[in-house]
């Protein structure tokens, strides 16, 4: 009997470069079931919270209530933005009784409910946490020929910030642990939690390019073959903006794609053909 989780994909999951394909392939191989949260809504990201706090909180509360309806106090996601928004909503709901009441009235209209005690116990976890903390290590650590990739971990800014709830908020190690579990080489660098500016890339492309260039340059200092990310916003930003400057191309893969490569899953099941910066054969 494998593990089973309620999964909140978020709006970017579908268009992300092979995230769904690779996550599904890997989960199948390690006997993890991701059950999609029925009727989920957008988390609102930084946009809704910037304009209207009550609306931002409502979006998070609705997701929590949907999870409650499925009998779960745990939501798993693969997006740093979604996780951050859910946690922010949770914090505000616990702080502000007035907001909590507003939300409960509104939920009733959809036949949903949310107990203050439940929101307190709600856990929001990244799929990476599931892989490292819950999946038995023998699934990852099997003896098999390994590709010779040198992999640079990149968490993005939001992972485990601000409170360090998941991991150290300056120097997290979860992704390093995972790459090592897979038997691949980890490339050390200092850009792991540097912000890539994804939310601003459309209106402020030049400013954001500077951030991305700094990150790519930092990662390449130690000869990484590829970087691995845990968030579709980071992936899109790092993958697409590289065309703007003149550095050797650095493929940006999801940790699920790297897992698939490390485990020797069929390459065609990992959605690698959707990357803008292609991965060359090792």
């Amino acid at each position, binding site marked *: 009997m494998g593990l089973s989780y309620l999964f909140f994909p978020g*709006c*970017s999951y*579908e*268009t*992300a*470069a092979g995230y769904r394909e690779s996550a599904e392939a890997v989960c199948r191989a390690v006997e993890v079931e991701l059950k999609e949260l029925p009727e*989920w*809504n*957008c988390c*609102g*990201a*930084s*946009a*809704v*919270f*910037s*304009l*209207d*706090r009550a*609306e931002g909180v409502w*979006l998070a509360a609705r997701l929590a209530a949907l999870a409650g309806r499925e009998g779960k106090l745990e939501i798993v996601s693969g997006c740093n933005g979604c996780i*951050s928004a859910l946690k*922010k909503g949770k914090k505000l709901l616990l702080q502000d009784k007035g907001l909590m009441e507003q939300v409960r009235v509104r939920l009733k209209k959809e036949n949903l409910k949310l107990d203050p005690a439940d929101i307190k116990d709600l856990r929001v976890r990244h799929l990476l946490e599931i892989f490292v903390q819950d999946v038995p290590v023998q699934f990852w650590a099997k003896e098999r020929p390994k590709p010779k990739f040198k992999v640079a971990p990149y968490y993005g*800014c*939001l992972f485990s*910030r*601000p409170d*360090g709830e998941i991991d150290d*908020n*300056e120097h997290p190690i979860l992704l390093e642990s995972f790459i090592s579990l897979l038997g691949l080489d980890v490339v050390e660098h200092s850009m792991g*939690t*540097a*912000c890539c*500016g*994804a*939310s*601003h890339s*459309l*209106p*402020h*492309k030049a*400013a954001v390019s500077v*951030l991305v260039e700094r990150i790519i340059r930092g990662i390449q200092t130690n000869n990484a073959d590829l970087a691995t990310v845990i968030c579709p916003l980071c992936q899109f930003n790092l993958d*697409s903006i590289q*065309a703007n400057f003149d550095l050797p191309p650095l493929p940006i893969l999801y940790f699920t794609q790297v897992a698939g490569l490390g485990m020797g899953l069929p390459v065609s099941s990992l959605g690698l*053909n*959707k*990357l*803008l910066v292609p991965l060359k054969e090792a």
Partner: protein
Amino acid sequence: MESKQNTISLIEDDYGLSRINECIQCGTCSGSCPLAHEMDHGPREVFSLIRDGFLEKALISNTIWFCVSCYACSSRCPREIPVTDLIYSLRQMAVKQGLVSKKIKMPHLFKAFDRQVRSGKRISEARIAFFYGLRHPGDVIPAIPLSLKLLKRKRVEL
């Protein structure tokens, strides 16, 4: 002194800005901020403006809209001031008081996003870019070649 206290106490209930009183002006936030160089004032300076009674100046600055919400400042502030959350508060305040300069582009992107979430519960990047682009075609037209590459890779949802 009196007016300083008043500036913050009038609004603290709604927005939690009283925490600004604890700021020691060390500049860790501005030093950690990836886009400080694009801002009229770094976050440290925004807080000193507010404390000194220039709330309006802080609200109309581009600072609060350039914040990319990376939480580096909040993680590092030695007084544990929730800098990022306070910037969110300032945004909400600026919107409510109509103090958003027309030249600042981020609110337009946020509004395109917000409208879509309210109408359909889920968003598509392509539709957001389209509605934002009606106002700022110069930002969106250069992204068309990229969009075609994405389309080819089935990375666009319309």
